[in-house]
């Protein structure tokens, strides 16, 4: 910086010439210099103030943000498992009334730190005394191995075992806190719950992961730290589930069936109140997946959801409903049922000859294959596919179970006219009992599409209207008549009018074709029939009633009595008042007259 002199010679000489006081020049320059210095000082001060202000602003923003963050985050309770990043927390699963289906129980794992052990050989022998499956010599070898410093011995200990280990007095044997998934009801609802296993293990905690069922489907939700304190409410009713399991188990034993399943669903909300598949298992000790044999015979297999079967005549309801809904027939239309109906090399027969013609109602009541085949013949393949798709029979069932998406229905490769006819009476297309339940719910609830759910719902599902309310009313009456006049006479129970349709399907053999003595019997029922609230599907795999001179395998003798007993037991549990049959018939008449009047 060039400093201007206070008395520049040139200006002073000039001033002297003109007779001015040269001191003025000095004063002026001094003033200018001072002004410059003042400006510089002010700039510096302003800069410092600005920096300081910025610093303070940053500080306040930081504090504010921290406070906002603290205020916004949900308060987390300290639990034993949350000390490390590995969290063993997992929300409870409750039934619709709040009864515990799955919960966590604190327990301890046992591990050894070999460097801190005083007498490893004695400790190994003492451990072998407490746990019979531990081999003392091998454990001692592991304890004395200089390569090993840390050994897991047990993932779960009972309090008694823990005390016994404590009493060994070995400082190298240590306990790590663990959470254990407990299903207090044992085998109840095993297929819905699935099971849990340990994931990543740390000394202070171990992850609990779902293996199957809702535990796997909702794994993220159950382990989400913010929702851990909010239990998951399922739509199951434990009391109803227990009753259905008890009756079904009894029926299965009496009829010597290989397996059985039952689905109980609310026809308006789609809530599954009970879902049973037998044989079942204990989710507390979930068996390993089978390595040999038919996977579908394993207890882990959920027959109601994963089991896609050709269900036979229960599917006739959908053929008849489509006939009614398209307007091509009415319940009184006469259908030609002369048999056998031949189509190319294929013949369609009835269980017995029902005469030359039957009304549509009697086709349902007597369960005539030829009748439904003739009804569907006029409607055609495309319309049938559309109709079944609307009911959800062509896709895997949507339900909150991890297994559901893995199995899909078996459909014909080419939807020929012959397929149309066989599918009309339930052959050539496979369906799971759960999908069937949803389909029947839509048939009788006024025609609205129902998506099954395992979560508790407050509201009625406002699904797409897939059949008209009038068709739905006609179907209710026909299902009622099947029980009152037709193949499901065992379903007449005091107090609760039931409507339903039987299905007895020969099971496909391992080498193609159908087996004669292996029948899958199904009964799809709705109750009370005049104003359906619930749909109940019962299937029995290879059941036979052997009380008569020869074994009776049709659903009317196997699935229907079991289903009737279930209905008799659970209807009161569902807060349903009994109603006399005449009252139900009167309700049907009233509905018929009001629809005629319109």
């Amino acid at each position, binding site marked *: 910086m060039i400093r201007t002199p206070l008395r520049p010679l040139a200006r002073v000489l000039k001033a002297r010439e003109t007779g001015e006081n040269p001191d003025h020049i000095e004063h002026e320059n001094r003033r200018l210099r001072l002004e410059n210095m003042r400006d510089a000082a002010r700039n510096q001060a302003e800069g410092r103030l600005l920096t300081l202000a910025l610093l303070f602003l940053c500080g306040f923003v930081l504090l504010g943000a921290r406070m906002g963050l603290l205020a916004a985050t949900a308060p987390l309770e300290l639990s034993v498992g949350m000390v490390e990043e590995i969290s063993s927390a997992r929300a409870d699963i409750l039934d619709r009334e709040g009864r515990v289906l799955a919960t966590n*129980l604190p327990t301890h794992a046992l591990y050894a730190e070999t460097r801190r052990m005083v007498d490893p050989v004695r400790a190994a022998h003492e451990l072998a005394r407490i746990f019979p499956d531990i081999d003392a010599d091998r454990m001692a070898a592991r304890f004395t191995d200089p390569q090993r410093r840390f050994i897991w011995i047990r993932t779960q200990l009972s309090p008694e075992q823990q005390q016994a280990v404590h009493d060994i007095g070995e400082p190298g044997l240590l306990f790590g806190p663990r959470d254990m998934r407990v299903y207090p009801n044992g085998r109840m609802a095993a297929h819905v719950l699935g099971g849990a296993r340990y994931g990543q293990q740390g000394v202070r905690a171990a992850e609990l992961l779902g293996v199957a069922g809702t535990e796997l489907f909702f794994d993220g939700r159950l382990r989400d730290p913010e929702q851990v304190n909010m239990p998951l409410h399922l739509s199951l009713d434990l009391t109803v589930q227990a009753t259905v399991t008890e009756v079904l188990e009894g029926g299965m034993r009496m009829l010597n069936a290989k397996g059985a399943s039952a689905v109980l669903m609310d026809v308006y909300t789609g809530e599954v109140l009970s879902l049973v598949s037998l044989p079942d298992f204990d989710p507390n000790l979930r068996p390993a997946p089978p390595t040999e044999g038919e996977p579908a015979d394993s207890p882990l297999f959920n027959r109601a959801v994963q089991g896609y079967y050709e269900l036979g005549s229960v599917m006739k309801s959908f053929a008849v409903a489509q006939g009614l809904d398209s307007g091509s027939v009415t319940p009184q239309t006469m259908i030609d049922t002369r048999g056998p109906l031949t189509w190319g090399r294929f013949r369609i027969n009835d269980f017995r000859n029902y005469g030359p013609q039957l009304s549509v109602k009697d086709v349902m009541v007597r369960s005539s294959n030829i009748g439904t085949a003739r009804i569907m013949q006029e409607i055609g393949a495309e319309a049938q596919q559309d109709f079944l798709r609307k009911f959800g029979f062509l896709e895997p069932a949507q339900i909150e179970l991890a297994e559901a998406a893995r199995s899909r229905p078996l459909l014909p490769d080419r939807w020929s006219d012959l397929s149309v006819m066989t599918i009309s009476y339930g052959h050539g297309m496979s369906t799971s009992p759960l999908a069937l339940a949803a389909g029947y719910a839509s048939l009788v609830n006024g025609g609205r599409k129902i998506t099954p759910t395992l979560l508790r719902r407050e509201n009625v599902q406002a699904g797409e209207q897939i059949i008209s309310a009038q068709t739905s009313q006609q179907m209710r009456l026909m299902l009622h008549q099947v029980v009152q006049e037709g193949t499901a006479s065992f379903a007449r*129970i005091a107090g609760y009018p039931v409507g339903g349709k039987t299905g007895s399907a020969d099971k496909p053999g391992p080498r193609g074709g159908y087996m004669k003595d292996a029948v899958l019997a199904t009964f799809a029922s709705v109750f009370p029939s005049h104003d359906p609230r619930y749909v109940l599907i019962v299937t029995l795999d290879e059941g036979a009633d052997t009380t008569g001179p020869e074994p009776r395998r049709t659903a009317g003798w196997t699935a229907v009595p079991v289903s009737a007993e279930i209905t008799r037991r659970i*209807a009161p549990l569902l807060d349903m008042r009994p109603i006399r049959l005449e009252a139900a018939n009167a309700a049907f008449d009233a509905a018929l007259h009001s629809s005629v009047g319109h």
Partner: protein
Amino acid sequence: MRSFLYFLTALAVIGLAAWAYRENHLTQQAMNERRALEREVASLGSAITIQRTEWAYLNRPDRLRELVDVNFERLRLVPMTADHFGEIGQVAYPLPVLRGDYSGVVEVSGEFQDLSDQEEDLP
């Protein structure tokens, strides 16, 4: 004047330091208390969980059914069916309450009738 201000400022700094020191200790104490409380909440929470699990385990449907079977002689519990629903008319009205004092001697008069042979018919 200026030295007085310096003195005051120094005093204020000392005071603030003392306050901050105290505050720091109070905060630490509060955090310790919080930790203790959280531990207590956690242990009580796990106790509640254990109790709830035990309750659910003891009330599991299988066990209740066995208990019903074992105690059938005494309790005579049967599954609920349609027959157990009643009409509102089947509920009896409460019996009229007797008024007056009957604790002392009550004088009655009338004919004497021997009921000894009829007593056997009574339930």
